[in-house]
């Protein structure tokens, strides 16, 4: 799957790579490695007919290529999110159509890139109505851009590009310029179906983050969450990070709780669909929901190990809930805890060797870490009488959790050894359900700070926080996927 990895340095020399193979690989790992032509064709056909992967696969011809030399002046984390925001202008794309007409995708691309960059907290996006230079009457080369028109409105960086439209197919050439130095920083080409403009924009935003902050952004990913937006039932939904591409996943008309992502894009969740809270897996390729673990009592908080081979969950198969590890078919492989206490909410360390979880074995809920090799679990929260919902960062260096402070619930993070506690949220409302971004720089969570429970994201310091979902109903339990490719 090396071709799916994001590697700006490699791509600088390598030129282009294809997302197609990585997407096929995503559907079935065997198909990406040494599959015969027939297999690939069959896979492609299967995927094309699939409601979820079809559009993605059509975008799979979405390729990226480097245009110019990359040597950004602004590199590394010299500015932090929320502290000093980098002013960037994102011009609408210049439309190239056989009929010479306008195209909504030109504005859509700019909007989504802008939304993602704003969510990052690193950027201040200069509003469209203050742009001076017309996209249609200018080029996208450093020589043909009027940089003075951009510097006068305060832009330090500028996104320009073209979109060539041919029926439902679009080809986007997007470039990032340093306005002060009047030169190209980098460019990317994407092509595919019009329905994939969103992902092209989110990928480009991630690349801008890579160029200007030194690390790829987290936005070409999805969030699964629980919502009552469709009525009284708690159902699982999935959306893009910009809030677009919203899909309702479950129609169980029951309680459905705690979604978690599999490496292959599948989802785990607990549902009372058949009366008992059982653990289910949803496969977006087939649309089939499979019941995986159904011991009498709770089967809750299922989460895949980092390599996808195992699932940790809390189950009440012996009375009080304990943490167990099961295989992909739900058979118990290991009992991580076996006590009278309430042990819930397991979260894997990135190396798969340890599990953080919540237990009330000391009389009230606290966060513990257990090594899967065995031995006593160690307690890592020292203060407070209510610490729950551990979420281990994919970077490995911190564990986020929820703590009750002064009658309110707030997010904190702590090192896995229990030192260096940091408070992430404060103020009114209850903040719960932390989930890390794939790059470990952000946390998605739910909060009642503005009334109804909605989703938010914060950077890992908490300095920058932004509301992600709006509208009716309660949104909770966000699960941030890995990068899509």
């Amino acid at each position: 799957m090396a071709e799916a990895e994001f590697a700006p340095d490699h791509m600088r020399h390598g030129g282009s790579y294809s997302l197609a193979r990585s997407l096929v690989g995503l559907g079935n790992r065997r198909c990406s490695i040494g599959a015969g032509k027939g297999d690939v064709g069959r896979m492609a056909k299967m995927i094309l007919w699939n409601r979820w992967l079809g559009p993605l696969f059509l975008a799979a011809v979405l390729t990226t290529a480097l245009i110019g030399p990359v040597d950004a002046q602004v590199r590394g984390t010299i500015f932090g999110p929320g502290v000093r925001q980098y002013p960037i202008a994102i011009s609408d794309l210049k439309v190239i159509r056989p009929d010479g007409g306008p195209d909504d995708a030109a504005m859509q691309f700019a909007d989504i890139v802008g939304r993602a960059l704003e969510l990052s907290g690193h950027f201040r996006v200069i509003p469209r109505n203050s742009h001076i230079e017309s996209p249609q009457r200018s080029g996208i080369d450093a020589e043909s851009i009027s940089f003075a028109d951009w510097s006068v409105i305060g832009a330090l960086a500028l996104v320009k590009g073209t979109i060539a439209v041919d029926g439902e197919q679009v080809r986007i050439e997007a470039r990032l310029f340093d306005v002060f130095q009047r030169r190209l920083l980098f460019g990317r080409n994407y092509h595919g179906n019009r329905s994939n403009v969103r992902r092209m924009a989110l990928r480009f935003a991630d690349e801008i983050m890579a160029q200007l902050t030194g690390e790829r952004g987290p936005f070409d990913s999805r969030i699964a969450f629980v919502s009552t937006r469709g009525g009284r039932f708690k159902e699982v939904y999935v959306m893009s990070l910009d809030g677009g591409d919203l899909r309702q996943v479950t129609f169980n008309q029951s309680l459905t709780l705690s979604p978690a992502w599999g490496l292959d894009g599948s989802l785990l969740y607990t549902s009372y669909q058949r009366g008992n809270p059982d653990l289910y897996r949803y496969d977006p390729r087939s649309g089939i929901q499979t019941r995986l673990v159904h011991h009498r009592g709770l089967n809750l908080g299922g989460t895949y190990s980092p390599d996808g081979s195992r699932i940790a969950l809390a189950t009440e198969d012996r009375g009080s809930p304990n943490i167990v590890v099961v295989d992909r078919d739900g058979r118990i492989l290991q009992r991580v805890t076996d006590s009278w206490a309430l042990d819930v909410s397991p979260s894997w360390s990135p190396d798969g060797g340890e599990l953080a979880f919540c237990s009330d074995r000391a009389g009230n809920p606290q966060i513990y870490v257990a090594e899967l090799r065995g031995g006593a679990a160690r307690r890592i929260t020292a203060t407070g009488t209510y610490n729950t919902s551990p979420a281990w960062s994919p970077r490995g260096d911190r564990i986020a959790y929820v703590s009750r402070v002064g009658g309110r619930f707030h997010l904190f993070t702590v090192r896995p050894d229990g030192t260096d506690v940091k408070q992430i949220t404060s103020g009114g409302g209850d903040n719960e359900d932390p989930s890390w971004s794939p790059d470990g720089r952000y946390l998605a969570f739910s909060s009642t700070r503005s009334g109804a429970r909605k989703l938010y994201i914060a950077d890992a310091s908490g300095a920058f926080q932004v509301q992600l979902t709006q509208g009716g109903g309660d949104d909770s339990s966000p699960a941030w996927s890995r990068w899509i490719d």
Partner: protein
Amino acid sequence: MVKWRLRAAVAVVLMAVFLTGCPRKPQDADTDPWARAGETDVFGEDGIAPGSSLDRYRRGLPQDGADGDIPGAVPSPLQDVYFGYDASDLTEPMRAILRTNADWISRNRNYRIEIEGHCDERGTGDYNLALGGRRARSVREYLVALGIPAERLSTISYGKEFPVCHESNESCWSRNRRVHFVVRPAQ
């Protein structure tokens, strides 16, 4: 030996049919006379007790309403018991209520009892589900200690999902931290 194997095989097949079942789809009773044959209530299937909190939620009924209008629901003569914050222990007043409940349960042997554990709205969903489970088990253990056969009692937790009272104050919270009893005819 062969006979035993055959029986085992038949049992396995029957079990498989029973366990996998067939998803019931709503069908027009006019065109399919079998559609509702033997089917008393679609919400009653899959182990969801008629009149239970989950059944009420699925029907869009308030949690504190009467059971009268729910097909198959047995109006419960059993009283709820209420817990302290983050607590699952039974105080003497709670035990007194449970002894009254136990009298009824032991006199009415044709019923099974589902013991539902509930929590107030504060705190984490998963932890509250665990806490509700412990409240239900705590009540079940006491009823068993009073002589009720364990097989007549089942437990389930709904955490903070099904409050009877919807305001954010202690008088509401204390009503929501409860164990509720659902009575079902024994099959």
